[in-house]
């Protein structure tokens, strides 16, 4: 069901309030809720975090916008809190990490499938295979460090297989930048896609940097440091897709539209009625923000929001398994690499000397991502299922 962006008024900003108790809802169930509920919580926390970060930066550069930004930002912050507090505390940091990677795989796959621009879709498929490999490495860690099965978190929606090897993903910054979309020509959906993944990956990067040092196992600490480095590359990649010529207010409009779009997708798919009501409330609040910013856009920039926003946003994020799509991409594009802004088969490009040198240096003393998953093959119930109990003395 498409949402008419210009017509839906949502809840006016002045009526958007929270109590402390509302900020701390009861968590989802790790065991009984659908894995995609966790995926949605993680993604929306990232998008809210991105909106908050953008609005702080915007305030630093726009004196006239400081007050409206402060008002909207407070609500964004409280929405983020309410959403993130839905995570279940019996999920360990590693369980949540697996959830972050499931977001990066399934949401990116949905976006890659729906993206109307071929170049952008290629960029998304490229990033997808890297996060796919991270899931495999973290699954090996969960299995080998604590005897845990990653599939208890993933609920069979996502394969646990090697992707583009993480140790090969390290690239010189020049090879992480991509061509940005053209703000005048790009489809609104392309802009929303780019912001969704930019903010989602940014939060993944934040999360790994926060929890990585809390591990005691040296390989776990190294793995988080290594994958955080790739996430920084992904933030660079996805951030570079956004047209830098967009004005601050234009970007603010797009951030609000991205939140509307994503909460709407969450609401459509959510099976837990209590959590669905939270998505619905956030959607109504975001529609209120969008109306508010459209007003600023008209008053300050003297422009019609319809220049930036479509009448309606179609094609929601598909919260479902993308197994077949991912397997095809894996089959065809696992050997792809990047050189400058271009992505293609390793043979076609030289995989520029810059990245080769950068990677060789970074991996010089060994690679944690290789060590953690040496000969690892995921099995239902962990790899110990294959180990013979007849070894008993």
């Amino acid at each position, binding site marked *: 069901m498409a949402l008419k962006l210009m017509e839906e008024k949502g809840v006016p900003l002045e009526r958007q309030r929270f109590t402390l108790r509302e900020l701390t809802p*009861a968590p989802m*169930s*790790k*065991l*009984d809720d659908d894995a995609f509920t966790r995926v949605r919580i993680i993604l929306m926390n990232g998008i809210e975090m991105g909106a908050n970060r953008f609005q702080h930066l915007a305030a630093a550069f726009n004196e006239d916008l400081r007050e409206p930004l402060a008002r909207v930002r407070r609500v964004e912050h409280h929405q983020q809190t309410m959403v993130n507090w839905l995570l279940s505390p*019996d999920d*360990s940091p590693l369980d949540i990490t697996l959830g972050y990677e499931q977001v990066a795989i399934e949401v990116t796959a949905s976006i890659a499938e729906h993206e109307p621009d071929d170049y952008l879709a290629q960029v998304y498929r490229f990033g997808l295979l890297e996060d796919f490999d991270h899931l495999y490495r973290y699954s090996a860690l969960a299995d*080998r*460090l*604590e*005897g*845990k*099965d990653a*599939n*208890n978190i993933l609920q069979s929606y996502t394969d646990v297989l090697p992707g583009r090897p993480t140790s090969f993903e390290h690239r010189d910054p020049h090879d992480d930048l991509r061509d940005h979309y053209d703000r005048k020509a790009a489809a609104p959906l392309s802009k929303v896609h780019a912001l969704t993944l930019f903010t989602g990956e940014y939060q993944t990067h934040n999360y790994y940097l926060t929890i990585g040092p809390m*591990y*005691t*196992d*040296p390989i*776990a600490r190294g793995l988080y440091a290594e994958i955080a480095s790739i996430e920084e590359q992904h933030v660079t990649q996805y951030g570079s897709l956004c047209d830098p010529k967009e004005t601050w207010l234009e970007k603010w409009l797009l951030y609000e539209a991205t939140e509307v779009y994503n909460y709407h997708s969450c609401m459509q798919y959510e099976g837990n009625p209590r959590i669905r009501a939270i998505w619905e409330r956030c959607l109504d609040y975001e529609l209120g923000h969008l109306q508010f910013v459209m007003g600023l856009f008209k008053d300050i920039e003297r422009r019609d929001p319809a220049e930036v926003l479509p009448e309606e946003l179609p094609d929601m994020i598909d919260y479902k398994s993308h197994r077949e799509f991912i397997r095809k991409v894996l089959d065809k594009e696992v050997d792809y690499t990047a050189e400058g802004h271009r992505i293609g088969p390793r043979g076609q490009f030289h995989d520029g000397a810059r990245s080769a040198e950068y990677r060789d240096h970074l991996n010089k003393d060994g690679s944690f991502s290789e060590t953690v998953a040496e000969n690892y093959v995921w099995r*239902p*119930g*962990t790899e*110990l*299922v294959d*180990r013979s*109990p007849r*070894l*008993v*003395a």
Partner: protein
Amino acid sequence: MEATHSREQVMGHNRTGIKASPMDGRALERTVSDAPPPHTESLQATSLREKFTRQADRFGSVPVVATARGVAETALHVLQGHRLASFTDKLGERLAFERSGVRAYEAVLVKLEALGAWRGGPTRDLLQAHCNEELAHFHMIKQILEHLGADPTAMTPSADVAAVQASGVFKVLADPRTSLSQALQALLVLEDVDADGWDMLVEVAASTKQDQLAGKFRDALATEETHKERVRGWLSHAALADAQRTGDGRQQASMH
């Protein structure tokens, strides 16, 4: 094997206590010395926590047994409804616990190889034997669950809680800075809980006249009791070695 790289405790510049900061510590103490002790009984937080506890959802459910065939074929058919759910839950907990136990022993083996042990401490062969026995228990529970038509890959609520409970233990085991005796101390927490878990399964199986199952569980219990006693023994020898140790007592307070 004698300890080659023991983690001696040394006296040094620990900054955490108030006496480590003579000036600031005294200033801090002065700010509170005149205030009467506050009332800390009947705090609101306690009643609020009670309220949350009453209202909280459960962690989740026990997965439905896929086929009733397995249950029907055994005397477990007397277990119905919540009793069957409870038994499956506890079997799921033991399965996850034993599986994690394999990884726990692997972590202790790393300590042993890296640091060595003391006289009367663990040997590689015994630690490996314990590790193998945890693996054998994991496979045994897996087979029982499969026989019952249950899914051995599912995480049951008790397995989930047990993993939260053990998370601190795994942090200690994985930390390269902990000594072998500190790791064994953490392992003892697991072994203690493990033996109790088997004991409970024996009781349930016996009360439902599941003689064959009860026998298997008793064997596992005996093995886990042996593990527990051995780990205790290794730790006792560590304490003894510490007490008998001569040397620079000022700098080195503990051997392991």
